[in-house]
C-alpha cells in the first residue's frame, strides 16, 4: 500500500482489490477521497494512505433511464434504470458511486440519508477488467 503514488491510477487499483482508500495529510490530517497528492488545506505534500470503513449515508441520487453505452451493455435501459448517487462516508467525505440493491423504477422508495455499505463491482476479464465503487443498503 505504501509505495503507490497518490493518484487515480492507484485509487482504481485499490478498487480492484476491494478497498476504498483516500489520502491523509500527515501535517494537518485533512482527508481526501479519491486521493490527492498535495494537501489543499495546508499545502503539505506528505500523504499517507487510509482505508475507509465503507459505511455511509445517501446524500443524493438519480435513477438513470438513458445511460451511456457502457451501462446499456450491462443491460440497463428505460425499463431497467440504474441508480447513481453521492454517498457521505462516516469519515466525513463524499464519494460518487453506483447504488445497488435499490429499485430505480420506484425512486420514491429511495431515501436521502439511508445507511449504505460499500460493495465493489468487477466487470470484464484480464486487461479489460474494470472495478467500480458501489454501495447498497
Amino acid at each position, binding site marked *: 500500500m505504501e509505495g503507490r503514488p497518490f493518484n*487515480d491510477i492507484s485509487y482504481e487499483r485499490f478498487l480492484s482489490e476491494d478497498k476504498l482508500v483516500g489520502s491523509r495529510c500527515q501535517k494537518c490530517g485533512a482527508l481526501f*477521497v*479519491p486521493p490527492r497528492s498535495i494537501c489543499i488545506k495546508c499545502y503539505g505534500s506528505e500523504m499517507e494512505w487510509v482505508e475507509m470503513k465503507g459505511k455511509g449515508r445517501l*446524500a*443524493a*441520487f*438519480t*435513477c*438513470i*433511464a*438513458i*445511460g*451511456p*453505452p457502457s*451501462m446499456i451493455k450491462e443491460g440497463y435501459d*428505460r425499463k431497467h*434504470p*440504474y441508480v*447513481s*448517487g*453521492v454517498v457521505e462516508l462516516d469519515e466525513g*467525505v*463524499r*464519494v*460518487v*458511486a*453506483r447504488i445497488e440493491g435499490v429499485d*430505480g423504477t420506484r*425512486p420514491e422508495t429511495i431515501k*436521502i*440519508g439511508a445507511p449504505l455499505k460499500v460493495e465493489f463491482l468487477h466487470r470484464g476479464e484480464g486487461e479489460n477488467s474494470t472495478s*467500480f*465503487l458501489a454501495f447498497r443498503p
Partner: protein
Amino acid sequence: MRGPRKLGRGVAMVGAGMSKFGMFGDKDSKYLFAEAFHEMLSTVDKGIDPEDIDALYLGNFTNDFFVHQGHWGPIISDLLGLAPKPATRTEGACAASALAFREGVFAIASGFYDVVLVGGVEDMSKRSTEEVTQGLAMAASPYEVKAGFTFPGVFGAMATAYFARYGASREHLMNVTIKSHNNARLNPKAQFNVSIRDIMNQRIEKAKNKGEPPPAWRDEKEFLRDARANPVVAWPMHLYDCCPISDGASCVLLAAEEIAKDFTDNPLYVVGIGQGSGKGLHAKEDLTYFEATRYAAQEAYGLSGLRPEDVQIAEVHDCFSIAEIVHIEDLGFFKPGEGYKAVEEGLTRLDGSKPINTSGGLKCKGHPVGATGTGQLVEIWKQLRGEAGERQVPIRDLRVGAAQSLGGTGGTCTLTILERK
C-alpha cells in the same frame, strides 16, 4: 478576493445577433455563424465596417469531437473576411462563449484593442444521441462518468438533495418548464417556440386524426406527470426538464466606451463580469448550490457596485429545470431554498417582478453549447433596448440585465451584468 475588481477602461456592447437555434441537417458551423454575424451587423445603429474589427474571440466546445476539426478561430475569421486579424478560440464547455466575451472585454479594457467581435457556435444535431452524450461527457468529472452519471443524472442528483433539504418536489420543477415554454412561444428564434398547452393541443389533434381516443389532460401539469408524454431521463429529470440538442451561433460586438457612441446612441455598458471554477460532485461543499456561480456573482457585483436586487431581468443557464432554481438563488435574487417558491408565485414570469429566461432559456430556445453564452446576451440586448417584441418585459425604466452561464457540471460559471445608461 481582495476588494472589488476594476476594468482598465470601460467596454460597451454595440451590436448583437444570433442564428435561429434548432436542429438543421443542412446548416453547418460556418453557415450558422454567418447568419448570426449578418444579424449582428444589422443591429449596429450607425453601422460598422468589418474592417474596423480588431480581433475575434470564439467559443466552441465539441467541434473537435463531432466534426474532427478543432481550429475554429481562423476558420470563422476567414469566413467573415476578418483574416489576418487575430482569432482565438475559448473552451469552457457550455460556457465557452461566455469566456470568449470575457476575453474580449479584457482585450479592450487593457487598451490593446478598440473593437472586438465575440461569439460562439455549435453544430451538434448531425451526430447520434449516443455520440452527443459521449461528446458532452468530456465536460464532466471523470469520477462522475465512472459512477454512471450522465449530465441529466448529475442535475437529477442535485435535485434530490435540494428536495430533501427544502421540501420542494417535481411539481415545482414543472413551473419552470411551463414558464420557459410560455416565453419561448413568443421567441421566433427559439427551437421550441410553443407553449406546453400548444404541445398538448397538437397531441390531442394528432390522436383525433388517427381515430384514437384523445388524451384527457386537464392542465399542463397533468401532461407533464404523464410518463408517456414526459418520460424519465434521469429521475427526477424528465424529458421536459432537459434542454435539447441544438445547432446555432451567436455573436456580439464590443467597443471601447469612449468610441461606443460612434456605433450607436444606445449602447449597453459591461458593468459587471465574473467567473468562478467548481469541483466535482463529490467534492462540492454543498450539493444544493454552485460555489463557482456564487464566486462569479461576487466578482461581478463587486465590479459593478450593483446588488442582486438591482438586476431587473436575467438569462440563467437552465440546462435542466432544477438548475434555473439553483441559479436564481446563487445569484442572490432569492434566498437559498426560496427559488422554487418564487417560480411558483410567478415572480420569474415575463410579467413578474424578476423575469428570468425571457428568451425561453436553454430549455426552449435551445442549447447549441458554444453559442449559448453570447446567445443569452443577445436576449439581454433586445430586452434592455426595448426590442424584444411580443416578449418585451413590461418593466418601466428597464436598465440592468444579467446573464449567467455554467460549463460542465458547474466547473466553469460566469455572470455578466449589462447596463443601459
